[in-house]
């Protein structure tokens, strides 16, 4: 889902940077406020490492392309979407600076797809499924997989907005870009869902219910 360096026109690059910048700033603020105990710090480090690991694996697919998971759902399901924004941004920054994968000009757009949209989809879906009393691990699996796929849908949308099809317009272009990602991305997304369940078993991720409670408390205080 990395849009490569220079592959968004300057106006688009600037707009996405303008959208993502404040969200990154707010994410930093939330991490400072929310992550305090050594346990919480260790769990956040584990979630960050999980995303580093998953996004480094280029997985081959039947479509003849390779793609990779994002790993940002774990942080979102552990601590909510705002801390996950920071986790995803760090991965993307690392890859842009060191690996020439993605880029600085497209960092804002890539942060929005992988570190904002994906985590929010995962987080909201998890909450809805829990509201419908789905089993917890099934909810984690579905939420993480959906967050992964949503990331790629948003990337396709970003590219379609910048490069509309001459005949089909933006919708035609979106379909073209999404068809590159969609089928290829299904196995990595399912894999990410399963690994996210494993991740939660390893870190005993019972934080989300407590996060929801503390969030409500925070709201009451304000």
């Amino acid at each position, binding site marked *: *889902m990395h849009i*490569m*360096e*220079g*592959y968004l*026109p*300057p106006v688009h690059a600037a707009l996405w940077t303008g959208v993502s910048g404040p969200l990154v700033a707010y994410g930093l603020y939330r991490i400072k406020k929310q992550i305090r105990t*050594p346990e919480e710090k*260790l*769990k956040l*480090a*584990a979630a960050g*490492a*999980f*995303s*580093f*690991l*998953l*996004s*480094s*694996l*280029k*997985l*081959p*697919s*039947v479509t*003849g*392309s*390779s*793609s990779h998971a994002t790993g940002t759902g774990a942080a979102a399901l552990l601590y909510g979407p705002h801390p996950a924004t920071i986790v995803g941004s760090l991965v993307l920054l*690392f*890859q842009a*600076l060191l*690996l*020439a*994968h993605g*880029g*600085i*000009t497209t960092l804002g757009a890539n942060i929005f797809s992988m570190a904002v949209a994906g985590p929010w989809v995962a987080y909201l879906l998890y909450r809805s499924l829990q509201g419908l009393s789905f089993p917890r691990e099934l909810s984690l699996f579905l939420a993480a997989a959906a967050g992964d796929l949503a990331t*790629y849908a948003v*990337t396709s949308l970003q*590219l379609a907005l910048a*490069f509309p*099809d001459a005949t089909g317009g933006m919708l035609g272009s979106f379909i*073209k*870009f999404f068809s590159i*990602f969609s089928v*290829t*991305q299904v*196995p*990595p997304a*399912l*894999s990410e869902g*399963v*690994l996210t369940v*494993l991740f939660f*078993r*390893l*870190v*005993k991720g019972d934080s989300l219910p407590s996060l929801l409670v503390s969030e409500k408390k925070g709201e009451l205080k304000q």
Partner: protein
Amino acid sequence: MRSLLLNRSNLLLLATAVLVVLLPLWFAYGTVPSDLMGTDDRAVEMVHSLSPGYAPWYNFQWNEPLLSHQNLLFALQGALGASVLLFSVIALHRREQRSKSRNRG
């Protein structure tokens, strides 16, 4: 600790995660192809076909000489992630066991 990290159902999950990726490949090709093009590069191709005049307007990379070993750098990223993940998970379990034994005592 070993039973927590490496019990049967966790290993089963890990195997499932790997098989979800590998099985479709085996069914389609009978093997795991090694030199596939990334979807990110395919998207770049699509940009060029949709807007033939487009040229990337910014391209600065300070570590150009390293990039011929891009796979190695990806492996480095994975190794970094795996080791921090392992460290954190082990540290979390140690803390938990310590607090458990304190409660018992």
